[in-house]
């Protein structure tokens, strides 16, 4: 970068007429060339839509202890099958570039998936029904983003990202909050709409979100697919 600036300055000097011949005129001031963006110190903000895959919570019967005189195994009062559906949400992120390739990013995501519990096979013939609830899931996260060499005349920039975050799942009515940790690994592409130093672009990415805690019926980690599309602005 320094070599580039020096060379550019020299070219300006070489190209300028002698000062004596320019009497009465203000010599043009050498302008500092703009550094290509992104560079260390660049910032990028983005906002857009998010899709998060659903997951199965398993089947479980409402079991009564069977009278041994009537058979073996539990007596099923009814059956249940629970799942969290996929959800559409929104996200906002801000990134600071440490170099042309490396950025640190933080952001927040919100999705509102539906919890479905299908109830069936009632011992007293209650009609089958799916009971539902809408969850509000927040993730506040941080990521390290590595950008690869651009192509398509610098407009397309592939990248990978990985990081961790804090999960905050709210049930309807906000009466119960369940928290946890999230880890994610993403890959995506940024497409800049111009080559100006400050410019707009679009960003699409997909990857895996590994949830440890938050709302679930079981202990342990669960992996769900995520994808997003955002409008980005770099400056």
């Amino acid at each position: 970068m320094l070599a580039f600036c020096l060379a550019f300055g020299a070219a300006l000097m070489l190209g300028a007429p002698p000062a004596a011949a320019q009497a009465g005129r203000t010599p043009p001031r050498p302008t500092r060339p703009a550094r290509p963006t992104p560079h260390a110190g660049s910032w990028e903000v983005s906002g857009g839509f998010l899709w998060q895959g659903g997951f199965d919570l398993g089947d479980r019967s409402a079991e009564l202890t069977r009278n041994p005189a009537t058979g073996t195994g539990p007596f099923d009062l009814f059956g249940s099958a629970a799942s969290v559906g996929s959800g559409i949400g929104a996200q906002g992120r801000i990134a600071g570039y440490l170099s042309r390739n490396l950025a640190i990013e933080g952001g927040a995501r919100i999705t509102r998936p539906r919890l479905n519990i299908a109830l069936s096979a009632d011992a007293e013939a209650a009609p089958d029904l799916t009971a539902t609830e809408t969850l509000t899931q927040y993730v506040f996260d941080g990521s390290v983003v590595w950008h690869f060499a651009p192509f398509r005349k610098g407009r397309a920039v592939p990248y990978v990202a990985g990081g961790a975050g804090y999960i905050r799942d709210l049930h309807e009515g906000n009466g119960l909050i369940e928290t946890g940790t999230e880890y994610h690994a993403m890959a995506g592409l940024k497409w800049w709409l111009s080559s100006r130093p400050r410019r707009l672009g679009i960003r699409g990415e997909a990857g895996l979100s590994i949830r440890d805690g938050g709302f679930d019926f079981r202990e342990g980690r669960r992996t769900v697919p995520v994808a997003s599309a955002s409008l980005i602005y770099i400056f």
Partner: protein
Amino acid sequence: MSRRIKLALAAAFVIACAVPAAAYLKLGTRVGNRTVTLAWRQFPIRYFVTNRDIDGVTAQQFRTAVESAFGKWHAVPNTTTSSQFVGFTQANPVSGDGATVLGFQNRPELDRTLAATNFFIDTTTGEIVESDIFFNSAFAWSTVDAGVTGRFDVASIAQHEIGHLLGLSHSALGETELRSGGRRVLGAEAVMFPIAFAAGDINDRTLKADDIAGISDIYGTATFQRQTGSVSGTVTKNGRGVLGAHVVAFNPASGKLIGGFSLSDDGSFVIAGLEPGPQVLRVEPLDDGDISSFFDETMNIDVDFKVAFYDKVVVVPRGGGTRNIELKVQPK
């Protein structure tokens, strides 16, 4: 201050061979316009055991089984009950003598009653001051660990009766079928279900979630209140309250079933002692058997509606309650 004390209902019967389905219910008494929960205020509960051997069970074996049953109720986490065996007595387990006595009596005329619990209560406060449990020696009994076919298990029946002694009424968490000669239990998920399994069965030695929620609702500590939650609302049919509807909360994560009843004319119900998290609600009429096993026969219990699930997942908060749930049912 003088206290008016009287003998109150013999609340608890275990009927030998038949009956109903589905939740926990606390014993109560009317004081003016309100109902107060029956409960012991003084601990440990000091009890005697009738010094009478019967075929297959000595008084000492009976005492050991009873002590074990008391111990399981006292071991429920975050509750405050305790008891103390005082000694053997020649007295029968009858109310009004000032002593809490458990023991055998030969009552062949009660041919469908294995055991029963009576109370002596302070009707101004609901405090239980004495309670007696008789076991009907007209039936065959056993205290053998694995149970004995054809003999009722003292520990299992004691578990149920001591639940009454502590203030619990019957749970309806079970299913029955009609057969020639009466009803038969298909399954139950509460020691406090009013009908025993067949002689020889020992399943009722183990407290279920419904029993634990019930005893915790009466004697729960502040920790219990903080760690669990409740759901409440109304059961309605054509816009009017349903009295005596049985509402069951099912936790699809743990599989636990805990029930309650709508206990007023507006159909209000409360189920406490629930684990925080999503619950499914199911409502059914109390139509599997004898309503008098659960309620005063003068109450106008509505059994004319269809079994139904609530179409929303109900989320129970930790240390709080989810209120204003309306369970709408349809006439049969």
